């Protein structure tokens, strides 16, 4: 599903050049649920932005669903992002002026669906997250957990094959966090690939696989564990 090879990303200011990612290589298979952990400033967010086509890497190769995305135009990348990728953020990032219905409508508009199809998808995704009754409400009228469920509904409405979640439970209390996590697992079971950045080791463990980013590079825990086990054996 996602294949990164030797990705580099550096930010340059007037005085210094920071390397956010160095020789970063990673492969995520179709249907996988991968958690990404790592200390602050290790490059988690940069990885997510590149994976989500919000930023372009300085070097290296990135194949999304088998397609090389390095040389695509902004329009093509946006189209790809719209069609294949769903985003979930720590801060929910719902648009405060728009009702739940209109929030979920946003990616569908950019997809170019007709009104009927948009309505069908919005209603379906609201139903999936159990908020059908509140379609006309504004985000501010909901609790944090509800807002995150709307954000998930918005990410799902376009039926993406690949979901990127950035600390999706970071702003939630533990009960709500658990609910959101269960929702994500449920979505994953239906075939959506998920990459989730998190601080929470408990959540990280619930994924199929955990990747740790340290200093802009990957250390694959599962492989490490496997290697350790092999060594023990």
């Amino acid at each position: 599903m996602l294949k990164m090879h030797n990705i580099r990303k550096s930010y340059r200011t007037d005085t210094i050049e920071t390397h956010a990612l160095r020789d970063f290589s990673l492969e995520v298979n179709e249907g996988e649920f991968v958690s990404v952990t790592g200390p602050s400033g290790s490059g988690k967010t940069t990885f997510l932005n590149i994976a989500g086509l919000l930023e372009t890497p300085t070097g290296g190769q990135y194949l999304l669903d088998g397609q090389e995305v390095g040389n695509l135009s902004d329009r093509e990348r946006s189209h790809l992002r719209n069609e294949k990728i769903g985003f979930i953020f720590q801060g929910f990032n719902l648009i405060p002026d728009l009702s739940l219905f209109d929030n979920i409508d946003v990616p569908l508009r950019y997809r170019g669906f007709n009104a009927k199809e948009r309505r069908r998808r919005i209603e379906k995704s609201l139903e999936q997250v159990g908020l059908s009754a509140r379609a006309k409400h504004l985000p501010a009228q909901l609790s944090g957990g509800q807002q995150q469920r709307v954000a998930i509904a918005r990410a799902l409405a376009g039926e993406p094959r690949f979901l990127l979640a950035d600390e999706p439970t970071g702003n939630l209390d533990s009960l709500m966090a658990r609910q959101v996590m269960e929702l994500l697992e449920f979505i994953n079971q239906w075939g959506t690939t998920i990459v989730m950045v998190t601080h929470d080791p408990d959540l990280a463990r619930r994924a199929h696989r955990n990747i740790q980013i340290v200093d802009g590079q990957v250390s694959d825990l599962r492989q490490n564990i496997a290697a350790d086990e092999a060594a023990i054996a």
Partner: protein
Amino acid sequence: MIGYYISLALRSLRRTPILSALMVAAIAVGVGAAMTTLTLNYMMSRNALADKDDVLYAVQLDNWDPHEAADNPSEMPWEITYKDAISLLRSDIPTYHVAMHRWGGPITLEDSTLRPYTAQARVTSRDFFALFDVSFVYGGTWAGEADNNAVFQVVLNKSTNEKLFNGENSVGRTINFNGAPFTVVGVVEDWHPSPKVHDLNNGDFMKSADIYIPFGLHRVLEIQTWGNTNGWKPEKIESYEDGLGAEYVWVQYWVQLDSAEQRQRYEDFLTGFIQEQKSQGRFPRPLKFGLSKPSEWLVLNEVVDGDDRMLNWLSLAFLLVCLVNAVALLLAKFLRKAPETGVRRALGASRSAVFSQHLVESGCIGLAGGLIGILLTLAGLALIRQLSMGYMDSVASMDWLMMLSAIGLAILSSLLAGLYPAWRISRTNPSIYLKTQ
């Protein structure tokens, strides 16, 4: 997608009503100022004779002072002498030709309670109506002999006929003008072109004549023009006849020449005429005459004067300031929405989609500004009508074309103003707005 952008724009305008109102106000005031002066300039530049622009010519003859040219851009007197007008009228080359000047006097009616009032008159040769396409309601023009002999006939315009005869067919009736009885031979439609292209010596935007009388009456009525009289030559004028024969210019002269060949023949005729006059000691300056189309005549006479053009520049500069203002405010407004834009980018909006969305928002502000700008323009024009005390009434008004232009100008301005802010917001890196601070 445009519909979606418009609904987003309206939502966004409602969300920041004060900032939006400021921008709409800035655009409206800028457009109002610019359109007020543009409308004035447009109305002042109108050419009532545009339909016949290719065949009508204002005639100028340079009979001026050998020591210095006439003091105007054409370097020829605007008008011609009475005796030259009489000579030119003898030519049979033009399809039509008109010698004329402004006059006026009191009108009275026998056996009527009508109080005497001053009528604006045009003393003219008979081709006036045909040359300028002024159509008759009743009757027709006077006979050719009235241009050379004293024939007391008059053509009224419709309003005057309304006032004097309640709009009835008054052909054959009699009015008293300047103390002499005149027989009505025709009634024409009111004709008040603005600017008064056929007579630019007497207030460019004032009303034209109420009544028309034949050109053959000068001697018997001792008519002194109500227009400009200019002279350069010291001459002994001891009688009215001396005045008619003098080098004073006070007659306006127009011809209709329908083909290039006809025009060529007329030019040859004028050349010959001036040469002949030169041999008699007149026309001391180098041989020169002018044939100006109505459109050229308006420019030559500087109908749109320096003040008008200066105001035009000033109001465009004003619009520029309003635009810069709008750019700054739009930038502020758009950047405030940067987090939302970040989310939209993440959800699949391309840069060009973001750019279009914001440009549409600018356009909506422009549309609102344009509509209010029209109201401001109307107010501005009303103010100018009032301040100019009647001199500008006929030009300080807006037609539908100018209203459309106002909206167009407003939208164009706001799109221009929105260009940079929309570009800027579309280039913003979305990722920085997605992370919780």
